[in-house]
């Protein structure tokens, strides 16, 4: 299979946003090519998936394939935020299916394979370079493989390049949010204990019989940690104020030493990791912690998933935003190509929905800043069902980062009931 010179839709990036958009458009009969710079399966972070993802799996027709993976099913979340420990259960929010802790290499591979099965031509090991967009629509993209260099002309380009942010970087319109002064460090542990929905710390081997929760603890004033047990090991991450990182990390010989010492001193997280070992993969780091592209769409191109924006992942919304944006990108492309006169309006809807969702996510996760909540976020909140709102509201109330969501809902649309439970302690036997 060689790269075609011309195609209806070129999707750059084979993560959840790209595979979703590509699969949906191929299903609608478009000629779709997807390129990815890596070979799947490939590792990536972002393992916690909310139950809302099942709706997207259903829409794609990929639910049986996801079920077959046998991912760890989680019942909810527990947050230890200072002295307060609270628990929420997804079953309290009208979800009849669980959240998941997934190996993203496997999850993303399932979605990409599905896109292939729908007729998407997938080229792995190919990198997108300069993009020339045409004001009349369409784009020409320089694509480089190991032995090949080609220009692909497409009627629509979907940028699903994740944090590489192909278009936003090329247009120089990626804006890092100065209110999120954090770095994230993460690694994977073998044999970590985990927390069950009743706040009991269990040995890793109990996973087969007792569902876990995603366990979040507060670090310092505004930082936090995640603890996500998966099939083989546990994803552990630290979100640390950048000033703390700069002050404390130079005292350690390696990043790994700093990471391990900080984990050990992080209260319950340290207790869970007692006796666990960091896997060979070592410690990874992310610096540009929150950004959004000022341009989300143009004639002939759309930005999706992390390529469009990224918000502090404290509420596990990245994967859902990726699949959501893949779906609405497919709608926008189809609408624009089928009825070209409606293209500008379809793009305007796409931008409004994407901006609304990022601003809402930002509003939920904003660390203690008294910010004005944008109208788009408030509006977008009201596109969610009552039970989805209750979940967002309850989750936000578990940390001290909720003040902005309160203001976002000042018109009274906020649910009055918080469905959460206070726990006295995390019990270690």
């Amino acid at each position, binding site marked *: 299979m060689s790269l075609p010179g011309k195609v209806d839709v070129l999707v750059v990036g084979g993560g959840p946003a790209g595979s979703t958009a590509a699969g949906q458009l191929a299903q609608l009969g478009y000629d779709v090519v997807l390129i990815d710079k890596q070979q799947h399966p490939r590792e990536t972070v972002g393992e916690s998936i909310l139950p809302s993802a099942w709706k997207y799996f259903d829409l794609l027709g990929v639910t049986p394939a996801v079920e077959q993976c046998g991912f760890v099913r989680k019942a909810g979340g527990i947050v230890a935020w200072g002295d307060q420990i609270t628990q929420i259960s997804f079953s309290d929010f*009208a979800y009849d299916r669980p959240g998941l802790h997934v190996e993203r290499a496997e999850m993303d591979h399932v979605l990409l394979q599905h896109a292939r099965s729908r007729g998407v031509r997938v080229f792995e090991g190919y990198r997108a370079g300069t993009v020339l967009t045409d004001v009349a629509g369409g784009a020409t993209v320089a694509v480089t493989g190991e032995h090949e260099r080609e220009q692909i002309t497409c009627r629509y380009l979907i940028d699903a390049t994740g944090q590489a942010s192909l278009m936003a970087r090329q247009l120089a319109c990626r804006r890092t949010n100065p209110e999120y002064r954090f770095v994230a460090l993460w690694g994977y542990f073998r044999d970590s204990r985990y927390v069950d929905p009743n706040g009991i710390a269990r040995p890793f081997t109990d996973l087969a019989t007792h569902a876990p929760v995603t366990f979040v603890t507060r670090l310092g004033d505004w930082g936090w940690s995640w603890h996500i047990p998966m099939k083989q090991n546990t994803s552990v991450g630290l979100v640390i104020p950048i000033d703390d990182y700069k002050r404390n990390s130079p005292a350690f010989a390696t990043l790994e030493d700093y990471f391990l010492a900080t984990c050990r001193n992080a209260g319950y997280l340290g207790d869970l990791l007692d006796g666990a070992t960091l896997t060979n993969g070592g410690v990874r780091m992310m610096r540009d912690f929150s950004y959004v592209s000022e341009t989300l769409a143009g004639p002939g191109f759309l930005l999706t998933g992390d390529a469009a924006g990224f918000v502090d992942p404290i509420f596990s919304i990245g994967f859902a935003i990726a699949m*959501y944006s893949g779906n*609405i990108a497919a709608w926008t492309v189809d609408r624009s190509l089928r009825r070209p006169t409606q293209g500008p*309006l379809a793009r305007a809807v796409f931008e409004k929905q994407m901006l609304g969702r990022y601003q809402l996510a930002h509003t939920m996760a904003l660390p203690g800043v008294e910010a004005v909540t944008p109208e788009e976020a408030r509006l977008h909140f009201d*596109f969610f*069902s009552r039970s*989805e709102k209750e979940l967002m509201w309850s989750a936000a109330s578990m940390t001290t980062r909720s003040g902005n969501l309160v203001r976002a809902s000042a018109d009274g649309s906020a649910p009055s009931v918080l469905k959460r439970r206070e726990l006295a302690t995390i019990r270690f036997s």
Partner: protein
Amino acid sequence: MPVIDPVIDSVITWLKRTAYIRATGEVVPDTELIARGILDSIEILNLVSYLEENFGIALPIDEFVPENFETPRAIANLVVRLRPAVAAE
């Protein structure tokens, strides 16, 4: 009312045929579509496509707000408002 009733009917018919989350029980003109999760923010886009193609309207971006999609009646009101020719019939 006679103007709006057929629009409400066609919206309800579309919902029953297409909506991802099938309404449990009857969908009536005042069923809360968004609050009950019958119409989500992806399905709304497909509804917009249907309304534009079926009723010959173009939805201005400022009308793309949750209030206009809260119930079948709200949706029908939107359609009638955007299509003065229907109201004049």
